[in-house]
């Protein structure tokens, strides 16, 4: 019975009959009270399902900070990026590939979450950037090397070294906001310009992303190339 019709029924009766009604029907009065307060509380029923979904499947979060510029939070955007994180692929044991952007727990301060790009996986040799004490690092089994796209202002593996896979929390798969960069995050590939079409801003930014990826990968020697030289 809808709330509105119930209210009409209550208000339409004279006072005496309403008192008699409640005296002979005690459960009816509690049912009415529950109907008045219960409807807004119905969302609690869906809470465990919702929590389970965001913990094990996909979740929506905001990315703060400048360490992944210009891929995420570029200077041209006035809002922080809102993205979808994919927890399912990490939980299902899918191998992490180079070029994925992942969210991981900060190894130094476990309460913080960092968003960085996986540059090298176990078995690769990486030429490191300045804050790191050694010039070259061999990534041990079960670890990855993560770096922020903005090399100047980032807290990444060049400060704390290779990260164990257990600290990786989720993969970034889709940007939801802002709308001009909405879409899945794809690995940067060399843009193909249509014949006769002038190279526009989009072509230049895709080319710049591709060149940045090449420069990052030039510092990494994968396991297969090292064995072929030996």
């Amino acid at each position, binding site marked *: 019975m809808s709330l509105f019709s119930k209210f009409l029924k209550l208000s339409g009766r004279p006072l005496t009959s309403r008192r008699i009604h409640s005296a002979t029907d005690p459960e009816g009065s509690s049912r009415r009270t529950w109907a008045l307060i219960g409807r807004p509380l119905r969302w609690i029923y869906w809470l465990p399902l919702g929590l389970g979904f965001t913990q094990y499947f996909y979740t929506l979060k905001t990315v703060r900070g400048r360490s992944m510029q210009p891929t995420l939070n570029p200077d041209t955007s006035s809002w922080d990026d809102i993205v979808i994180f994919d927890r399912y692929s990490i939980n299902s*044991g899918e191998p992490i590939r180079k070029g994925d952007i992942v969210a991981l*727990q*900060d*190894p*130094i*301060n*476990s*309460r913080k979450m960092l968003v960085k790009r996986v540059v090298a996986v176990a078995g690769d040799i990486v030429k490191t950037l300045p804050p790191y004490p050694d010039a070259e690092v061999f990534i*041990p*089994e*079960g*670890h990855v090397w993560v770096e922020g796209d903005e090399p100047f202002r980032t807290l990444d593996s060049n400060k*704390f070294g290779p990260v*164990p*896979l*257990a*600290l*990786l929390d989720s993969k970034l798969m889709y940007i939801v906001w802002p709308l001009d960069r909405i879409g899945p995050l794809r690995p940067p590939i060399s843009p193909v310009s249509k014949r006769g079409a002038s190279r526009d801003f989009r072509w230049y930014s895709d080319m710049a992303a591709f060149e940045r990826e090449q420069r990052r990968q030039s510092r990494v020697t994968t396991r297969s190339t090292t064995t072929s030289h030996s």
Partner: protein
Amino acid sequence: MAGPSMLPTLDNSGELVLESILPHRLFPNQLGRGELITLTSPVDPSRIICKRVIGLPGDVVCVDPTGLKAHSTEHVLVPKGHIWVAGDNAAWSKDSRDYGPVSMALVRGRIAARIYPLNRFTVFSKNATYIEH
């Protein structure tokens, strides 16, 4: 429990222990030296391992007093946010001597007590006794 790396404290197989996870989730920075902890293995993220805390962040730890995996005079400074763990059975344990200091973010909780077999029931305390020179 399974594995020889914590002999003689914990047996190779056939034992049940009580793992206490909530106090570590609430207060992650209250780890004591000598505590038995459970952590996710830094080498294999699907395995949970049990080791003893030897060094806290800032401590200078002797890497391997037995001299098996490193020279017995080699020392290392444990970086911030990391701990040095070691198994009680030095000959059969893969621990920080192999993979270095582990991040405190990998720690799950501590072993509170051994509950099976019943004739070897022990409660593992958090306080270690220090031997002074």
